């Protein structure tokens, strides 16, 4: 599975004209993914992109690999069949907040629970783009959309907390425009064995423009983005003077400023991506009181689903080396008619 010449991001682009709206965040993600594949030395014919339906799910058409643009919400199930049939394949799954969390929530739940070895990229634009802008399960309360002219009333879902509850063992977050960090996160997702879940905040310029500005635009980025790294103190802010610590005596986090009221560097919590309780807290932090936690928030690997499945087949083959259907049919009670 190793290749001779190193491929470039361009080598992963198809000749198909990209059909997203000008200015759509999907373009940036496409760029980051193509760069990632080049960086990790992916082999095009060993790589499969699977998606459901939505603007985001158009993704496979633009990757010069194998691709399957399936039906709405079901991508995880196709990916499971693909991976079980040929575990050598490197399977990427692209979905949206509607595709993956509305109609497809159950399949996402079970692909994570089973820990199928695929990289799941959820493009979260907090809206249904392709169907012209209805609110989605991640839309904030009050979202005005064609189906909610008076504002939506459904409480939004947190993709990260949902994934954690589903038993996900790799949970990361990125931003469409964070070209510096995104490829690294995607590479880690790829390196992780088992299901990896990456939520990418993606701007829908037509139907939900600027929903993420509070933490994505230049002005607020530093004070509202906390990029976590395993083993490093969780610092953020313009001159990284702000940090997170455990509220003394409580099971909660608080924002502190190093150098203020006796807070020293040692008070700042060091990120442990293997700590599930910490992951639960970090994924649950909400603006404006807290920054948005980005990067690899949780990783705690376990054997992939296909290993166990294939082991059982291997064991059966070992136990019955020369398995013959003729023999199976003739096992048990038979009689001769002459």
């Amino acid at each position, binding site marked *: 599975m190793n290749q001779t010449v190193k491929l470039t991001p361009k080598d992963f682009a198809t000749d198909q004209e990209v059909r997203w709206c000008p200015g759509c965040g999907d373009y940036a993600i496409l760029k980051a993914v193509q760069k990632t594949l080049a960086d990790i030395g992916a082999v095009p014919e060993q790589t499969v992109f699977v998606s459901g339906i939505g603007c985001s799910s158009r993704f496979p058409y633009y990757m010069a690999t194998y691709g399957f643009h399936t039906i709405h919400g079901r991508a995880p199930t196709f990916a499971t*069949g693909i991976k079980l049939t040929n575990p050598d394949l490197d399977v990427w799954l692209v979905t949206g907040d509607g595709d993956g969390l509305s109609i497809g929530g159950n399949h996402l739940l079970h692909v994570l629970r089973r820990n199928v070895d695929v990289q799941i990229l959820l493009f979260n634009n907090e809206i249904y783009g392709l169907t012209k802008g209805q609110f989605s399960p991640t839309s904030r309360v009050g979202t005005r959309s064609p189906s909610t002219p008076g504002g939506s009333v459904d409480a939004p879902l947190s993709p990260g907390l949902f994934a954690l509850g589903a038993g996900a063992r790799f949970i990361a977050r990125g931003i469409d425009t964070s070209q510096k960090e995104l490829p690294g996160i995607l590479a880690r997702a790829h390196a992780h064995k088992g299901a990896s879940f990456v939520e990418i905040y993606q701007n829908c310029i037509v139907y939900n423009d600027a929903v993420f500005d509070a933490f994505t635009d230049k002005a607020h980025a530093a004070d509202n983005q906390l990029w976590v790294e395993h083993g490093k103190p969780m610092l953020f802010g313009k001159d990284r003077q702000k940090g997170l610590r455990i509220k003394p005596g409580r099971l909660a986090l608080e924002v502190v400023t190093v150098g203020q009221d006796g807070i020293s560097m040692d008070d700042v919590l060091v990120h442990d991506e293997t700590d599930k309780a910490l992951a639960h807290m970090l994924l649950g932090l909400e603006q404006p009181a807290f920054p948005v936690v980005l990067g690899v928030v949780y990783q705690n690997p376990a054997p992939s689903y296909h290993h166990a499945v294939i082991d059982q087949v291997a064991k059966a083959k070992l136990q019955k080396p020369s398995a013959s259907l003729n023999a*199976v049919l003739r096992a048990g009670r038979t009689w001769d008619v002459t």
Partner: protein
Amino acid sequence: MNIQAVTDRDIHELDSVVIRFAGDSGDGMQLTGSQFTVSTALEGSDLSTFPDFPAEIRAPVGTTFGVSAFQINFGSSRVQTPGDAPDVLVAMNPAALKVNLSDLRDGGLLIADSGTFNDRNFQKAGYTTNPLRDDIIAKYQLLELDISALTLEAVKNMGLSNKEALRCKNMWTLGLTLWMFGRPRQAIVDWLHTKFAKRPELADANIAALNAGHAYGETAELSGSLRHYTIGKAQLEPGLYRTVTGGQALAWGLVAGAQKAGLPLFFGSYPITPASPILHHLSALKEFGTLTFQAEDEIAAICAAIGASYTGALGVTSSSGPGIALKGEAIGLAISTELPLVIVNTQRAGPSTGLPTKTEQSDLYQAVYGRNGDAPLPVLATAKPSDCFDLAIEAARLATKYMTPVILLSDGYIANAAEPWKLPDIDAIPDFKVEFRTDPEGFHPFLRDTETLARAWAIPGTPGTTHRIGGIEKNYNSGHISYDAANHQLMTETRRNKILGIAKDIPLQKVEVGNDRGKLAVVGWGSTYGAIQQAVMRARRDGLDVSHIHIRNIWPLPQNLGDLLQAFDHVLVPEMNTGQLLTVLRSEYLVPAEGLNKISGQPFKIAEILEAIRDRL
């Protein structure tokens, strides 16, 4: 034998008997029946069985809805159906009597375990007094035995609890009936030894009960009603036989089909009655490389199977009506992406949840027409348990040769019924190895075989043929998505013609029984096969001009079927639905076919079809 002769004037039937074992869910009637089946088969009788169990897992003891029954028809002539009315009814308790007595033919033998005929059970069964003392019983030959007591007696001091001891009742009953019809016990003794390998005392007790029941028949002083009958061997084709249920045969056929195609088998399914046995059988055949995936729901099951096909496996999914309904959208994708897939529907009585444990043929519309868009696919229907094996292989052949999903219809009766099966030699079955596309030269995913119109199948992992597919319409010449009007027309017609073209690749329609022209053709499909055939044979013996046509290829239909039907004055279509094949035949051939429709969740009786034939001739 005389308990037959009483009513049946049909000499060819004299040499067959119908027994029904009926008791509480806990009484082990299904075991009794299947063991009686085995030893009957070993004696070389032809046979057909009909297990009929309740929807409840284990309903409260003694209730009518907890009654479980097993009927077997066996004889020295071709049997084909479990029989219209039992000649012998074994009722292990009042509830079993209540539910089954009306089916026992007049003059038939009723064996009742008087040990269970007490007030508590009468009341549970909805009787106010002892039904055995009722006048209606006069119509039958009653044999009252305290089987409970006789069993306890037979196994006493064998260290069993009273509960365990009573569990041996069914073996005592089996022993008695085996004696009646001169069937050997050895096979059952062997089976008991293996079944209770871990608890030899239970094996011994059951065997003791079995022998006691047998001895009772031999020694006891009994009314003439109970005699020792002999039933000759059936004139079956020479060869090695076993009994097989539809569920088994279908699972084995899928494994064989994948082998013949040279592909790994991927089976994605979600449990549902009565389709689950296929999942269970395949789950135990991993040594063939079979992957069975119990998905979170039916949609996940079929989509995983499509993903597997996309990756180069033979993807198969299986369910029953309500579950198949959920697969409709995904079937459309398989049609649009033109991937091979086998979809098995073990039909049950509907609509909606309906009667999960009862049989019906009411999903034909769903199979042929039940999708959005112009979405044609081949539909096959099995006639009987052993047929499941052949058609599973045929489904795999059509799916891979034509790159299309195929629907294979079975039903709850076929899935659970058993019949003798002349074992095929797997190696003698011609194979149809798949050749994946590996040549990048001029490749695109919707390149077609000019003859079959099947598209090129290149699988992930193949260098140089990377491509993207999906459910959006594709350009005929490049496989890229296309919104072009003329192209959509071309692709729609191509998909249609590909499926219609399969008619050239399937057997011409033959006539099962009778002439290929005449007064009346009785046209059937699926599990009505045996009943129709027996009825037509009997009618012909009575000199009636009637033929039996059985359709296995529901879509596309055999090329000669239209002409064949035109050659009959009348066409009668018996179906266990309100007339679904009828719609297809009438619209395709404009023949004034009429339906004979039974929607009771029960298979047709021979007499019901025979009567309909007589009414028309």
